[in-house]
C-alpha cells in the first residue's frame, strides 16, 4: 500500500512538472518551419533508438500495442538535453533543455479491448535567437540587439482503443487532438539608452485533430510485425482568437518488426515516412527514418542499445540528417509495480549551414497502482 502511494505521488510530481514543459528536444532547424517534431517514444523505446516504439504500449506511436497491457498502468518520460549548436558561419553555443515528452495511461476495458490515452509532443516550438545588428535611424547607425523567443509546444492528446481480433491479429485506432500554445516575445534593445526597449508579447494557440490506425500481426511467438498510419487536419494558429495561419500536416506511416531471440533477447527494427512537404512551407521536406534496437537481459533488469538515422522536415537545401546512438537499462521495483528506465542518447544533426550535437539523459517511470 505504501509503495503504491509513493509511486502515485512520484507520478503526480512528474505530471505537475510536466505540464509546463511538454516537448521534445528542440532544433535550430525547426525555427523557420512549424517546429521540431517530437518523438512518440517512451524512455524504453528511445534507448533502443526508437525501434521498439511500435511494440511498446507506453510509446504513443501506435494504438494496437495497447492491447498488450492487462492492468491499469501509467508511464511518463523525462529528458534533459545538452545541445551544442554549431553554425558554419557563426558562433558555437551550448543550450540546455528539460522536457517531459510523453505520458501514457492505459488499462483494459474488457478481455479483448484496451483503452489508453495521454499526451506527447507533436511539434516543439521552444527556441530563442539573439540577433545583433546595426540599423540606420535618421542617417545615424544605431546598434541594436533583437531577442525573439518562443516558449511552448504543440501537444498531441490521444485517446486510443486496441482490440485483439484473434490469436495473431490486434488492431487499434486513436483520435488525436492537437493543442498547445507558445508564449512568444520579440524584444529590441538599443545600445543608445535614449531609445527605450521595445517588447511585444503574445500567446499563439494551436489546434487541430487527427486519427491513427495500426495493427499488430504475430506471425509466431517470436516474430511480430507492426504497421501504422496517421493523418491530421490542418494545424490552426490563433493569435488573440484570430486565426493567423493554417498549415496542412503530414500523413505519417511506418512499420516495424520484432524478433524475440529467446527469453532474454529481443531485436527490433522500424521505419517511418512523413510527407512534411504537405505543409507547403518553403524548405520543408518529406522525411524517412529507420531505427534498430536490442534488448537483452532479464525482463526485470534488461540492457538496451539502439541506433537510428533519419531526416528533419525543415531546413534549407536538402533535408537535414540526424543520427543517434543510445543505450540504457531498466529496473523493476516494488514487486513489479514500478519500473524505472534510464538511458542516454547521443544525437547529431547535420544540415546546410548548421550542425547540432546532443547528449540526452532519458528517464522513464512506469507504475501499476
Amino acid at each position, binding site marked *: 500500500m505504501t509503495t503504491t502511494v509513493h509511486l502515485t505521488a512520484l507520478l503526480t510530481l512528474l505530471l505537475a512538472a510536466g505540464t509546463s514543459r511538454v516537448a521534445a528536444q528542440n532544433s535550430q532547424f525547426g525555427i*523557420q518551419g512549424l517546429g521540431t517534431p517530437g518523438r512518440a517514444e517512451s524512455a524504453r523505446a528511445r534507448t533502443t533508438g526508437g525501434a521498439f516504439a511500435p511494440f511498446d504500449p507506453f510509446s504513443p506511436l501506435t494504438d494496437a500495442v495497447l492491447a498488450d497491457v492487462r492492468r491499469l498502468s501509467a508511464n511518463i518520460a523525462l529528458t534533459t538535453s545538452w545541445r551544442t549548436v554549431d553554425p558554419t558561419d557563426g*558562433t558555437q553555443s551550448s*543550450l540546455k533543455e528539460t522536457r517531459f515528452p510523453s505520458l501514457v495511461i492505459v488499462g483494459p476495458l474488457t478481455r479483448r479491448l484496451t483503452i489508453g490515452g495521454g499526451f506527447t509532443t507533436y511539434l516543439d516550438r521552444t527556441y530563442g*535567437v539573439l540577433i545583433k545588428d546595426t540599423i540606420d535611424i535618421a542617417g545615424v547607425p544605431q546598434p541594436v540587439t533583437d531577442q525573439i523567443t518562443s516558449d511552448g509546444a504543440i501537444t498531441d492528446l490521444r485517446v486510443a482503443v486496441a482490440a485483439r481480433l484473434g490469436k495473431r491479429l490486434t488492431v487499434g485506432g486513436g483520435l488525436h487532438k492537437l493543442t498547445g500554445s507558445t508564449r512568444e516575445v520579440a524584444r529590441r534593445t538599443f545600445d543608445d539608452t535614449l531609445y*527605450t526597449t521595445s517588447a*511585444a508579447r503574445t500567446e499563439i494557440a494551436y489546434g487541430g485533430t487527427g486519427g491513427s490506425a495500426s495493427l499488430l500481426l504475430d506471425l509466431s511467438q517470436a516474430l511480430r510485425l507492426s504497421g501504422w498510419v496517421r493523418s491530421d487536419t490542418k494545424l490552426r494558429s490563433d493569435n488573440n482568437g484570430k486565426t493567423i495561419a493554417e498549415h496542412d500536416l503530414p500523413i505519417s506511416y511506418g512499420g516495424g518488426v520484432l524478433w524475440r531471440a529467446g527469453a532474454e533477447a529481443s531485436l527490433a527494427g522500424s521505419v517511418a515516412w512523413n510527407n512534411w512537404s504537405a505543409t507547403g512551407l518553403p524548405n520543408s521536406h518529406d522525411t524517412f527514418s529507420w531505427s534498430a534496437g536490442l534488448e537483452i537481459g532479464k525482463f526485470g533488469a534488461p540492457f538496451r542499445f539502439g541506433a537510428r538515422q533519419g531526416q528533419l522536415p525543415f531546413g534549407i537545401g536538402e533535408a537535414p540528417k540526424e543520427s543517434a546512438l543510445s543505450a540504457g537499462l531498466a529496473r523493476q521495483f516494488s514487486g513489479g509495480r514500478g519500473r524505472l528506465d534510464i538511458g542516454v542518447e547521443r544525437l547529431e544533426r547535420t544540415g546546410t549551414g548548421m550542425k547540432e550535437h546532443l547528449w540526452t539523459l532519458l528517464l522513464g517511470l512506469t507504475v501499476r497502482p
Partner: protein
Amino acid sequence: MKRSRIYFLLIAAAACTEQSTAPGVCPDFCPPGQIQSHDSVFSIIERDSSFRGYVQSFHAFTMTVADLPGVVDSRAFFTTDTVLSRIQAKIGDTTTVPKVVDSLRVRFIVVQRPKNTTGLKLRLYRLPVTSDSTSDFASLDPYFVAAPIDSVDISRLLQVPGATDTAITNYWATICQTCIDSVRVDPEENVLLTQLDSTLLLFVKLDTLQAPLSEADTGRLAIGFRVAADSFASVVLSTMETGASSPLVRWFYHYTIPDTVSATPDSVVANDKVVPPRFDNFVFTPPTPPIDSNLAVGGVPSARTIVRVAMPNFLHDTIDVVRATLSLVPVGAVQGAPSDSFRIIARPVLGDLGAKSPVNTGSFLADSTFVHIGSSDTVRLEVTKMVQAWSLDTSLVTTFVIVPQPGIEAGSYTEARFYSTRAPAFRPTLRVTYVSRYQFGRP
C-alpha cells in the same frame, strides 16, 4: 534509501535550468518575422503658444547677479527685518539699555557660478530700506553706482588654504554641520564654506560704519549685490523663498547691565541676533522683451510655452514608440554667461485650458533638456515617455507645457525663444522612432 535516491534524481532532473537562446544565424536559422524600426518626422504640433506672468522675480527661488556688457546688467538685493536699538537688560525690569553694535555678518548662498572665471567679486551696496517689488533697475541704479560698502573676492577666497586653527574650524562646523571641504577665511575675515551640493555659503563681515544700526530705519537694512569678474561675471544667489537658504544678517552687539550694587562695576553682556529677510528681488536691464509670435520659455516674469500634439491614429495602437524627440529651432542664441545655461522641462497638463492649463508637476512623464547659452543649435527635447503614454492611452490630453526648471523659473534674465508653427520653415517637429507590430506565429 533507494527510494530517496530515485526522488532526488528525478527532482534534480526536473529542476534543471533552461537555456534555449542562442545567437541567431540569420536568415537561415531565424524566425521569418523581423523586428522593424521606423523613424518619421511629424509636423503634428499645432496651436502652440506662449504666455508670460506665471512667476514673478520676487517669487523665484534664485536671483541672478550678472554684469555682461552688451547683454545684461542684473543686480540683486534684499531687505532685513527690524532690529531694536535697545534691549531689556534684566527680566522683570522695564528699564532698557542701548545696544552697542560691534559688527555684523551677511550670509548668503551662491547657488551657481562660473567655474573657470577669475577675479570673481561680489560687491555689496547699501540700498534704501523701502526697496520692494515696485523698485526697478532705474530707481535703484543711483545706489548701485555709488561706492560699495564692501567687496568679497570669491575667486581669492576659493584659493585661500583651509583654516587649520581648531577654534575656527570647530566654530564653523557648528554653524554648518553638513558643509564639506575646508573653512576658508580671508584677511577681511570673510568666510567661505562649501556645502554638500557644491553651493557656496558666504559670510561677509561688515562693521558699523559699513552697516550702522539706524534707529530711523528701525534697524532695517537693505543690501544690494553686483558682481564683477575678468569674464562672464554672473552668479546666482538663493532667495528667501527657499527657506533655510535665504540671505540673513547676524548682528553682534553688547550692552551694559547697570549694577544695583554700587561697589561692583557694571557688567557687560555680549550677544547676537539673526535677522531674517523681509524681501528680496533682482532687477536687470534690458528687460525681457514682450511675447511675440515665437515660443518663449523663461525670462521675468516667467514665460511658458503650450504645445498641442495631434496624434495620428496609427501612432496609437499598431506600434511601439521607442523614442520621441521634439525639435525646437531657436530664433537666436540665448546671450549671457555660459554658467547661466538652463534646463527646460516638458510637463503634461491635466487639462487643456490654454494659458491656465493645470500642469501635472508630479507626472513621471516629464522630460527635460538644457538650453545652452550662446548656442543657436536646434534644441532637442526628449518626450518619449509622454508620447508612449499617449500612444497607449487615448484618454490622455495630448498637450504639454514647456517650463523652465522649477527653482530657477523667473530667477534669471535668460529666456529661450523658438520658432512656432507660424514659421513653417522652422516650425517645431516631433521625430518619432517606433517599432512596428511584430508578426507572431507565421512560419
